[in-house]
Structures are given as structure tokens and as C-alpha cells.
């Protein structure tokens, strides 16, 4: 993989996910115009509530041990898939169908013959193309070649690579448009294909088409690559602040905040760097000009604080009677929660 190409392409990495965001159907047109710097990241346990919703493959990325995996640019799907199967359920694949048909990508990348790079007719779906692919010479040449590969045929691997690499690359290009001119997508497609060819029995034909299975695995690798690139970039950045104040060092207590223990007031700078690197906190600052509100967000959704007393202290309402204090805290939490929901930083089902 070309490291330079990867680094160049990650200077504005969030564009790579713009299509995915729109595919997910959770963002409006306005959101699509703004660069988002969020993807699923493997945050420490304390940061897990700040869940990102951009990845359409939740069951894959939420696998245990994801934090360690994020440091590996291209993990071998052979080992990766032992004990875990890529999610090819309708829920996981639906966003992608949305993307092909509704995000306008296909028409923007069609060739003169009116077909998308992987041969999808304009207005058609990826599934249509897959059916076309399977119906070239016989009802299912890919399945037949897969069966022969599992049975020990030595040339089936070459046949499958010839059949599937281009369509797979085309799908990845559609998913990761910012990287479509780099080696990254080539590498991901090739690695996933070779991993499969080396251990074809990992693919269960009953779980769905092979091309889609490969796409899921490649997408997961690319996601890991993306995270790693972001992390490397984040390390090089000077953290803006622990809670968003660029003039204040991460370990300093915010103005107006009462001391609440070293752990809360001096959160792990690495976490702050990661958030800054992802641009998440920048968006929080934009959405929440009030510093106490940002501190509330940090305490509730980053550190997982649920104590009304502590939160009232952050908001500066700890002097009020208990009932009023509780109401003020609840109202502030609800407002902040709605903002985070609108930004797509948390899920509905959480919190």
C-alpha cells in the first residue's frame, strides 16, 4: 500500500464517508454539504457512549477487541473472520442499496454506455449487476468456481480473481470515493480476494453472494485503515483542548468549574487528541457555544457521569433546591442530547 497516497487521501478523510452518511438516511441535505470527520472509532470504554453511526456494518465493527484492530492497517481477513462472520444481513446491506440508487453516485460515474464502473446499468441496482454477473455463461459460475475451489481445484482461484476483482473494486470505489484514485482500494480488494482464495471455506454460500461477502470484508479493512490513518494524523496534531478551549491546557481546570476530582478534570489527553483529531469536538463547540454545556456533554457522554450532584456542579446550579437542581440538570441533558443526536454523534437507542 502506498503510505503517501493514504496520507494524502486522509487529509480530508471524511469526504470518503459522505456517501455513506447519505446512504444511512440519517442526515439531511445540509449535512451532506458539510464535511464530517466522524466514523466509528474504537474508543476506550469511557468514550463508548459517543457512538458514531456512520458505519453501516455495526455487527462487524462492534466485535470485541476492536480497539487493538484499529491499529492494524490491513488485517488479514483469514484470522479476522475466525469466530466471526461478516454481517450480510438485510440490515447491513440496505444502506448500500440506498447508496447505489438514491445518492446520485451512479449517474455521476457512468460511462458512455450508461453503465457504472462495475457494469451496473443506469438506474439499476448492485443486485441487478450481481445477477448479470452470475448469469454470464451458466446459472452461477461464481458459485460453481467457489465449490471447485473448496474441493481443491487449483485453477478456480484464478477464475474467481478474474471474475470478481473488478466488480469488487468498483464497489469499493463507490463506497470510498476519496480513495478511488489511490492504491488503497486496489490493495484492499486484492488482499481480501487473496485471503478468501487461501481459505475459501470461510465463505458460507448460504450467507449471501460471494461478491457482497468480499465487499463487506474489504470495507471492514478499509475502515480499519481509515481509523489507523486518522489516529496517526491525530497524534501529530496539537490538541485544541481537553474540553474545547484552545487557550487552556488539557490538564487545567475550566474556568468556572468546580473541582470534581482529577480524573474528570484531567481526562486522558490521548482521548482528547483523538476527539480533536476526528473533529468531533470542533463540531460540539460549534453547536454548543456555552462552555458549561460542553462540559456537561463531556461529563455525560465521554466520561459516563450520571450523578445529578456532579452535573449540577458543572452547570453551576448546585446551590438550588434539590428538585429544581434535578430539573435543571435534566433539561440541560435533554438539550445536549438532542444536539448530539442531530450531529449524529449518538444513537437514539443510547442514553
Amino acid at each position, binding site marked *: 500500500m502506498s503510505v503517501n497516497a493514504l496520507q494524502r487521501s486522509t487529509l480530508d478523510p471524511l469526504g470518503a464517508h459522505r456517501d455513506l452518511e447519505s446512504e444511512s438516511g440519517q442526515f439531511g441535505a445540509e449535512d451532506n454539504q458539510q464535511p464530517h470527520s466522524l466514523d466509528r472509532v474504537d474508543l476506550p470504554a469511557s468514550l463508548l457512549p459517543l457512538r458514531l453511526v456512520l458505519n453501516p456494518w455495526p455487527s462487524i465493527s462492534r466485535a470485541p477487541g476492536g480497539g487493538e484492530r484499529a491499529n492494524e492497517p490491513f488485517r488479514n481477513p483469514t484470522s479476522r473472520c475466525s469466530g466471526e462472520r461478516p454481517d450480510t444481513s438485510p440490515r447491513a446491506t440496505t444502506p448500500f442499496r440506498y447508496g447505489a440508487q438514491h445518492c446520485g453516485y451512479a449517474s455521476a460515474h457512468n460511462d458512455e454506455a450508461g453503465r457504472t464502473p462495475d*457494469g451496473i446499468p443506469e438506474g439499476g441496482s448492485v443486485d441487478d449487476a450481481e445477477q448479470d*454477473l452470475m448469469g*454470464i*455463461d451458466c446459472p452461477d*459460475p461464481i458459485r460453481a468456481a467457489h465449490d471447485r*475451489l473448496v474441493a*481443491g*481445484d*487449483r*485453477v*478456480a*482461484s*484464478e*477464475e474467481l*480473481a*478474474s*471474475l*470478481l*476483482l*473488478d*466488480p469488487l*473494486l468498483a464497489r469499493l470505489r463507490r463506497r470510498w470515493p476519496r480513495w478511488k484514485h489511490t492504491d488503497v482500494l*486496489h*490493495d484492499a*480488494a*486484492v*488482499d481480501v*480476494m*487473496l485471503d478468501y*482464495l*487461501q481459505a475459501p471455506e470461510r465463505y458460507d454460500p448460504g450467507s449471501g453472494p460471494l461478491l457482497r461477502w468480499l465487499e463487506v470484508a474489504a470495507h471492514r479493512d478499509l475502515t480499519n485503515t481509515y481509523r489507523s490513518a486518522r489516529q496517526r494524523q491525530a497524534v501529530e496534531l496539537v490538541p485544541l483542548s481537553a474540553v474545547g478551549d484552545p487557550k487552556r491546557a488539557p490538564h487545567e481546570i475550566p474556568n468556572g468549574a468546580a473541582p470534581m476530582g482529577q480524573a474528570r478534570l484531567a481526562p486522558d489527553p490521548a482521548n482528547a487528541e483523538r476527539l480533536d483529531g476526528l473533529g468531533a469536538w470542533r463540531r460540539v463547540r460549534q453547536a454548543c457555544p456555552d462552555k458549561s454545556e460542553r462540559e456537561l456533554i463531556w461529563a455525560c457522554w465521554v466520561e459516563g457521569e450520571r450523578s445529578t450532584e456532579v452535573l449540577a456542579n458543572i452547570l453551576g446550579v448546585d446551590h438550588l433546591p434539590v428538585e429544581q437542581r434535578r430539573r435543571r440538570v435534566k433539561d440541560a441533558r435533554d438539550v445536549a442530547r438532542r444536539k448530539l443526536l442531530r450531529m449524529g454523534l449518538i444513537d437514539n437507542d443510547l442514553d
Partner: protein
Amino acid sequence: MTWTDTALLEVAANRARSRAGFLGYDLATFQELTGNDPAQWLEIDQTRLDRLALCRTPRRDARFGQDVLAISAHMEVAPVSLAGLLRLADAFAEIQDVGRSIEEHIDHSSTQVLAAARDEGEDHTVVADVVGAAVGLPGWLHEAVELFWAQVPTSGRFPRDLDFAVLAGLPLAVVELPRLSLRSISEWLGRSQRIDLGIAGRRDRRLHACLVALGGIGLIFVDADDDATQRRVSLAHEAAHFIVEYLLPRKEVARRRPELLDVIDGRRPATSRERLSAVLGDVPIGVHTHLLDRTDAGHAGTDRVEDAEWRARRVALELLAPQMMLLEQIRRSKLRDRASVRMLLVHEFGLPASLADDYADQLLRLASPPQPGLLDLLDRHHAAEGREDRPSPGSADEEPSEPDRSSTSEPEEDQ
């Protein structure tokens, strides 16, 4: 039905070259260790080479031959070339591995190497046990021939081309060197493999072929200047050496003392206890022997060498021109003279004239009715006496005499 453009396949092929299990890995090994271009070796262009790299590598077991044939048919390459490339890559890798072990553990690597040669002018004496051969092949010969054809289908066409059978059926690689001699082989091994053949001080001499085996694999050197006939015999002869002097003893060790295989392959020296137990248990721990010794007159230097060379010639003949098949053909065609049999051997079975002369003589002896022994003479004597005592022919209780029946049926059974 190819959807993928060549550029992407090239990326995949390059990646496959670093992954064991793909043919690309073998191609890369071959190129790295031998310095040869696989595309030139296989006589294909780069695009087909890339596609070939994406095939799974042939399984290194009894299915090696069929895997090579399947890949060759799919990619339109010569099976012999592909099998030769793979065997060379394997052999070079194995020899280098063993070479490193030898350098670490053992001072004289030549003691771990089986080396045997087919000298020029050694095509004589093939069938010594005439009586035994008349009733079938000796057990050791039968076992060796069976082992050779175990993993490849027996060729029914003659002259037999053993190139693919040798490469597919045995872990042997073939190296062609011009003006083959002891010195050229020794220099080649020392230069490319850092293996000392241990022939320093010996008289150099021209060879048709030579076998060097170690670590479970073998290299057959053949004279690049030889014609197809000589090359055919050379391959059969050296493959026979490999089977009789290397594989079969190794098989015996693997069966009785598998822990000694590392010693035999030169990966570690034998402990004193292992040496003692091998001697007491009659395990052939010293199968790796030099069989290169010759006298100034060109004869085998020792009985051991003479015996090994005789066995190799015998197996080679059985591979190229099976004795029982020939005897059947001689009887069926009623060939009686040496010239006819010689012509059959040369033209139909592709043997060199020097070898055909000797073999023809012995086949005629085997095909002729056996000379009567002492028991046969006694039987005839008793039969003659019995006839004198019997009633005249045509009586009701007449029965065929026992000796007469045996004298006509026994040669048939022998055949």
C-alpha cells in the same frame, strides 16, 4: 469470461508472489533462487504469468501430477516445463535449507549427500538372474517400479518419455549442464548451492547424468548435449538410483525410526546413542553414500558401487522396456535372432544401441525354452520306461503320461 483488467490482476499476482500457497510464490522463489525468468522458462507472456501466479500451487503429494496437468491445461503451458520449474524451486529451497543446517552442525557436507552418476559407456549387464526373471520380477525390482509409477499413470506408449513422470512422481528436479562432468557439477553445486560434493582430488570424467540427493529431494544433472535417447536412459537411471538407494531406505527409516530422518537428511548430526541404536537395530542410517567411485579403467570402484549401478540399470530398463512385456512380444512375434530383438528395442522402445545389444541377448535367453534340468531328465527317463510297460495305444484305460504333460505345460507357466 474475464472481467478484471490486467492491471488489477497484476497487482493481485504481485501480492500472490509473497503468499505461500499460490503458484506466484513458487514463481518468485524460482526466480530468486535460480535467477531464471519464469516467463521465459514457461514461454508465456507476462499477462499469462500473472494469471498463473493466481492459481493455487499444486499439492506436494500424490496429486502433484494431476494438479500440474490441470493448471497446464487451463493456462496453456507445457506440463513438463511447469513441473520442472516447481521441482527446481522446491529443490533449491530445500538444498539451501539443508545447506545451512550442514554448515551449522556438520563439517563435511558431502557425507550427507547421495551422489551417483551414469558414466559414458556403462550400458552393459542388465539381467543377471535369468532363471528368477523367467518367473517374474525380483521383489526389490517390482517394488522400485511400483514406487515410480505410484503417482503418475503408467505410460503405454513407447518409447516412453519419462520427463513428466520423473518430475511428477518423484521429488526430483532436472538440471541440464553442457559437457557434463564431475567437475562441472561440483562447481555448479558449490557456486549456486554451497554444497560440497566431496570430489576434491578425484579424476574428472565426462558423464551422461548424475544424481545428487539430500534432504528428501534430488537433483538430476543431465548432459545438455545428449540426444533424446541418451537423455531418456539417463533420467530413468538416475530416477532408479534415487528410488533404490535413497527413497526405499529412507522409507524404511521413516517406518522404523522416524526420529532419525533429520539425521539422514543432514539437518542434524546423529547422537552417539542414535548411532549405536541404528547399528544394533540395523537401521540404514547411512543411506547417503558416494557412488561416484570408478577405477581408471572406468569400472565401479567398489562392490557397493557396482551393485548400486547394476540395480539402477535394471530398474531403468524395466521403466523404459518392461521385461515381461518384451518377452510376450518376442514370443508372439516369434523373434528368434538377436538383430530382430535389438531392432525392436531400439526402434520401438527407444533404447540406445549399446544398451539394446546387451538386453537383446538376455531377452532371447529368457524367451527360449528352458534347458532341461536333472529332474526333467529323470522324468523323461521314467516316462520312456513306462511307455515300454504299457499296453499298445488305443486301449480303453490309456491315460496321458505325467512327465509328458509336465514337459509341455511348465514352459507355458513360466511364460
